[in-house]
């Protein structure tokens, strides 16, 4: 009797459990475990600076415009906009169903408040310069103007008027940057510095911030108040920072991560063999270059600079040092910006042997031979790949009569030294595009730029850049002008471009909507998972 009852109980229990097991998948959350190579520094849009913040913020907030899965500009909080004939006044119509995650509507006042806050010196925003094209913005940020005089006005609750200093064709691209996202004034007034905390952060995008355990995970959950919430397929996004690239690949293989935004590039060939098309590698808008002190002898001789640049075998660097995770670069602006043709160095198509001969001839003419070598010091910030690049170049230049010494310092020391225009010959630097426009790459070589580590000062270049800025109303002409400006920069060797960056991700075949693009932008709201 007891035995029968026991058997019946076990049978019933098993049925119940298995019934539950059948039910579970239908209600299970779709979870995307998104590996990232580093932790974001802050989730306050006005305090951000790196791509790691950009990725998370892009899921949390909606700026006036956003990027789709191909990184093209699409409407965001603004459903439409018009530009005045002279290109200086943008009128944005905000969508009427735009809502914050606390249920309050997103209004034009929110954007006015956010733009003021970005430029407010007390905020200490690193990317305040993203809104400098707006009239009066730079003045506010440098304490020379008042917020009321800034060219941003709420015409009514859903109409925002932005007035620029001058026509800026790439302004909409700049508005995809996370520094321009709105923030909830009500939330900041109530919570002060705590407004960014998980569970409290009020956002207007596809997701809200559920948890942030530093160096462990950031959990985003779907925002039901998002105006397009029904198209968002992923319920929970876990950003999982894994700094050790090799460890991340193992975690991916074990299924702990569905994607990872970096790769141990020294293993790239093996990874591609093992993972096939789960590995995504392609051009990324970034340039790896050597700054060279153009105002210090002997580097002030343009022929000498040209000889050095010519002699460097970039194919070798790309293939052997970087395992093809970087591409050989002969211009300051990398390829991939529609409508723009980068100005490549004149010797880009010359065979390496001829380039080395030509360089050797120039160096001999200037009196440098292996017996009486030219002394050059290359500074770089500590990293295996930077070291290997510099060592390779040291070897390449030796037979030509250039004696290279290397000096590496940690990243902070390196950039602090460059910023203070220390006494160096050649220094490694890189530039990643903030927005999809050649301006971001060429602007840093202007005399006034703080990032002009080469101290490049060329009147023709300045004229050409001014001309391009003046042609703001005519995008095609402006692109041509910029290309001509780059031609001046490259021919005068304002920098020694070496390589173009590439993105390298690993993506599980279960994910859809992760589309390769030159900005490596993959908003979670366009991604789905099997």
């Amino acid at each position: 009797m007891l035995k029968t009852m026991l058997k019946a109980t076990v049978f019933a229990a098993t049925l119940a459990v298995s019934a539950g097991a059948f039910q579970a998948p239908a209600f299970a959350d779709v979870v995307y475990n998104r590996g990232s190579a580093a932790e974001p520094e802050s989730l306050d849009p006005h305090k951000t600076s790196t791509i790691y913040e950009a990725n998370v913020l892009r899921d949390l907030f909606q700026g006036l415009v956003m990027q789709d899965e191909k990184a093209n500009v699409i409407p965001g909080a603004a459903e439409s906009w018009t530009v005045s004939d002279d290109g200086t006044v943008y009128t944005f119509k905000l969508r009427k169903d735009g809502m914050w995650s606390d249920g309050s509507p997103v209004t034009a006042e929110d954007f006015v408040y956010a733009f003021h806050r970005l430029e407010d010196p007390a905020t200490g925003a690193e990317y305040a310069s993203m809104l400098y094209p707006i009239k009066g913005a730079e003045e506010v940020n440098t304490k020379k103007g008042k917020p009321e005089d800034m060219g941003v006005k709420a015409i009514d609750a859903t109409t925002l008027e932005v007035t620029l200093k001058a026509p800026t064709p790439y302004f909409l691209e700049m508005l995809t940057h996370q520094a321009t996202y709105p923030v909830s004034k009500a939330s900041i007034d109530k919570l002060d510095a705590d407004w960014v905390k998980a569970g409290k952060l009020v956002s207007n995008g596809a997701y809200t911030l559920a948890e942030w355990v530093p160096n462990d995970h950031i959990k985003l959950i779907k925002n039901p108040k998002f105006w397009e919430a029904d198209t968002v397929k992923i319920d929970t996004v876990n950003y999982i920072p894994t700094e050790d690239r090799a460890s991340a690949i193992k975690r991916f293989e074990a299924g702990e991560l569905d994607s990872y935004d970096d790769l141990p590039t020294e293993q790239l060939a093996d990874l591609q063999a093992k993972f096939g098309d789960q590995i995504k590698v392609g051009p990324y808008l970034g340039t790896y270059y050597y700054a060279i002190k153009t105002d210090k002898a002997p580097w002030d001789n343009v022929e000498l600079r040209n000889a050095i640049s010519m002699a460097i075998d970039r194919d070798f660097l790309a293939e052997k040092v970087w395992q093809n995770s970087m591409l050989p670069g002969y211009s300051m602006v990398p390829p991939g910006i529609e409508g723009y043709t980068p100005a490549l160095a004149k010797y880009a198509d010359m065979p390496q042997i001829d380039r080395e001969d030509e360089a050797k001839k120039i160096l001999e003419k200037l009196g440098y031979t292996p017996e009486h070598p030219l002394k050059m010091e290359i500074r770089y910030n500590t990293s295996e790949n930077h070291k290997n690049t510099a060592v390779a170049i040291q070897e390449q230049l030796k037979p030509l009569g250039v004696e290279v010494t290397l000096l590496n310092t940690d990243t902070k020391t390196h950039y602090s030294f460059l910023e203070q225009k220390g006494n160096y010959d050649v220094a490694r630097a890189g530039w990643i595009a903030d927005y999809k426009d050649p301006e971001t790459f060429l602007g840093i070589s202007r005399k006034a730029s703080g990032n002009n580590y080469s101290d490049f000062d060329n009147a023709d270049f300045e004229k050409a850049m001014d001309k391009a800025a003046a042609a703001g109303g005519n995008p095609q002409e402006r692109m041509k002008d910029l290309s001509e400006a780059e031609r001046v920069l490259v021919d005068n060797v304002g920098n020694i471009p070496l390589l173009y960056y590439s993105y390298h991700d690993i993506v599980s075949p279960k994910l859809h909507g992760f589309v390769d693009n030159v900005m490596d932008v993959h908003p979670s709201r366009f991604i789905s998972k099997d």
Partner: protein
Amino acid sequence: MLLYVFRRLLTAIPTLFVIVTLAFFLIRVAPGGPFNQERGLSPEIKANLEAQFGLNDPLWVQYLHYLKNLAHGDFGPSYNLPDFTVGELFAKGLPISIQLGASALVLALLLGSLLGTVAALNQNKAGDYSVIALATAGSTIPTFVIAPIIQLVFGLTWKMLPIGGWGDGAFVNKIGPVITLALPQIAIVARLMRGSMIESLHSHHIRTARALGLSDWSVVVKHALRGAVLPIVSFTGPAAAALLTGSIIVETIFAIPGVGRYFVDAALNRDYTLVMGTVVVIAIFTIVFNLIVDIMYAVVDPRVRYD
């Protein structure tokens, strides 16, 4: 004894003060600051940032400001993770590092003592040699080799352990990191134990005990061990301080959100407040554990007296 403890704790305060002062000024000697990076900032923006954190005040003003806040237990915001204060970062990460470190320490002490005792009892025989060989291997193979091997073998190949992550404190997530942390310490403890056990086993009172016919167990565990354990106690003090504050290598490879990484990253990032936080924490741990070790001496060895 109690007076001794009290005196030690009292001297800890000026010690901490000196350490904090030295660290405060030394970290600022390093070139560069928290806001130097590849994409240089305009002088105005940099000035705005520095004003926010009080970095453009004269140095002695910043120092006094820091001391005042420290007296209230406020370590300040982290410069590189400004959404969190240094206190919050440690509140979240220190318990994790302590869990892993304590487990590794206990494992090292138990297993190391066992192996060392076995080696001592089998001196110059197979048991001894194998323990020494294992100990040498354990202390020479670096943690950044052991960790990926554990991940590969136990994680990917045998699928017994997760590759990384804290998993909210799940037991399986701790196994890899604890073993990696413990292995070098097991090796050290084993060698220490072997050495002092051998010495203890040859001492007079052990000869007497054996002569009196006491069992092997009684001789080794009740009598020889007590004398042999002193070097282990010395070792445990600084080892505990180091282990409980986390290891950057283990935490990076296993993606554990502990505080070990802060010791290196904060300095490299010139995150002044976080660096000061790490210095204060490790100073406190070192002082406390050294005190505990000294107390343990008195407990273990009745010949030790503090007056």
